[in-house]
């Protein structure tokens, strides 16, 4: 599903976000990415959905090379990926409902279908009653949950979540991880970047550890760069 072939990403300022990382994630896997602040977790995720392109190396998603995908094709890749950004990244001019409905809308779903999907997603994160609020009128944790609802609304084949529970209390965090697990059980590949050691402990998923841009540990080390079987679900 997702392959990194010796991927390096260097920034204009000289910072190295990712340093010669090779890895392979199969369809249906549940992956944690961890590592200290600045280790390259967000950079890795950004390379998957094409927000950054690799300086050297190749990123393959679903067998297609993201780095060499023409710009006009990128949106279609992204529609199959649900992303929870580290900074929530909501559209400020749009209400909570409109934010979550954005992808269903541009995909041309009927109004009824849109409503159904959006409210189901908002309900899952406990915000069904806040559809008319604007992001600025929400607390930090509520914004984060809207972003999670948006990422999951269209049942994407890949879910990327960057520190999705940084602003949430332990009970809510647990509920959110249940949502990710459910998506994973439906067949989605889920990649979560997190600092939270407790989340990692609780779920028996594969863990990739980054340090200063390098992949320094993979809980299923032996198969990091070779084809692997789908991991057993929890």
């Amino acid at each position, binding site marked *: 599903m997702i392959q990194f072939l010796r991927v390096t990403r260097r920034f204009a300022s000289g910072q190295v976000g990712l340093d010669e990382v090779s890895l392979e994630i199969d369809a249906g896997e549940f992956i944690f990415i961890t590592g200290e602040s600045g280790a390259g977790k967000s950079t890795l995720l950004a390379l998957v959905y094409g927000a950054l392109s690799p300086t050297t190396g190749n990123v393959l998603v679903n067998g297609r090379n993201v780095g060499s995908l023409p710009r006009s094709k990128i949106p*279609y890749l992204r529609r199959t990926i649900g992303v929870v*950004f580290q900074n929530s990244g909501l559209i400020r001019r749009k209400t909570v409902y409109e934010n979550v409905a954005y992808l269903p809308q541009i995909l041309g779903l009927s109004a009824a279908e849109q409503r159904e999907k959006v409210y189901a997603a908002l309900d899952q994160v406990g915000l069904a009653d806040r559809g008319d609020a604007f992001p600025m009128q929400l607390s930090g944790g509520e914004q984060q949950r809207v972003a999670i609802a948006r990422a999951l609304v269209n049942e994407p084949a890949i879910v990327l979540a960057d520190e999705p529970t940084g602003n949430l209390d332990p009970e809510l965090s647990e509920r959110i991880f249940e949502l990710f697990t459910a998506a994973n059980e439906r067949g989605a590949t889920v990649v979560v970047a997190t600092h939270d050691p407790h989340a990692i402990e609780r779920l028996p998923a594969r863990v990739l550890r980054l340090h200063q841009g390098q992949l320094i540990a993979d809980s299923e080390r032996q198969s990091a760069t070779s084809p692997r079987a789908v991991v057993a679900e929890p």
Partner: protein
Amino acid sequence: MTWGQALAYFLREAVKSLRRGWRVSLLAVFTIAVSLFLGGAFALLGYNLGRQLESWKGQARIVVYFEPATSDELLEREGRALREHFWVNHVSVVGREEARRRFESVFPDLTDILDDSDAEPLPPSLEISLTAGARSGREQVIRDRLERIEGVRWIDDDRAWLSRLESLVRVGRSVGMVLGALLLAAAVFTIASVIRLTAYRYREEIAVMRQVGATELIIRCPFYVEGLLQGLAGGIVATFGLRLLYAWLSPDAVEDGLRQAVAANFLPWSSLTLLVLLGGVAGTAGAVLSLPREVFGAEPELD
């Protein structure tokens, strides 16, 4: 999305954005309205001054004086020949009799002297009024033609002042055209800058839309439609402004001659439609030109 859905979506988004940012939209509309209003004002004045000039030209005359001995037949013949020319509107033949009558009315005290002598010394003349077709460039041609007439003594051209006027209007027009072009550029530029800044204002949200899977078309079109709507609105406001200017120039506040000169007629419907369309084009062009490369086109940066 189907095309119909997409169009409805673009329009809805554009209207929503206009409503939410109505202050800024008003700015854009006002700015383009001012530009088009000024352009339109030049057009209005130019149009009317042009017509006025034509009518003054119609009143202008060239008088060709002949040798006193010239016969009335020659005069008549030359008059007929001149009437063939497209630049001649009307020729009146002032024969010796007529010339004398005029002389008497001017210098009644001299009448006796003229009566006493047998000579007929007063020069007969042809008074030529010109058509609208006799443009300024033709002056030399006309003079040449007249000087070739047999027995001509001298040519009195009433058009010294007229030509000054014409020059003025000509300069006014060419300056107006330069200014008008500048103004239109300024209008496009302003709309562009307003939309550009609006795009900057929303750059994070645009980045989010893009990262969620929106195509460039879906992101850009609402801006284009917004520019178009602002431009059309600006054009309509400018039209009303021109109507007000026209009303202001028309009434008794202004001497009648002046009113004739600059505000005799309002612009025709075709020009007004053109003005509004120009607004729409300028607005759209502004939107198309403006979307900043930092927001559109550059490699999206990690937020």
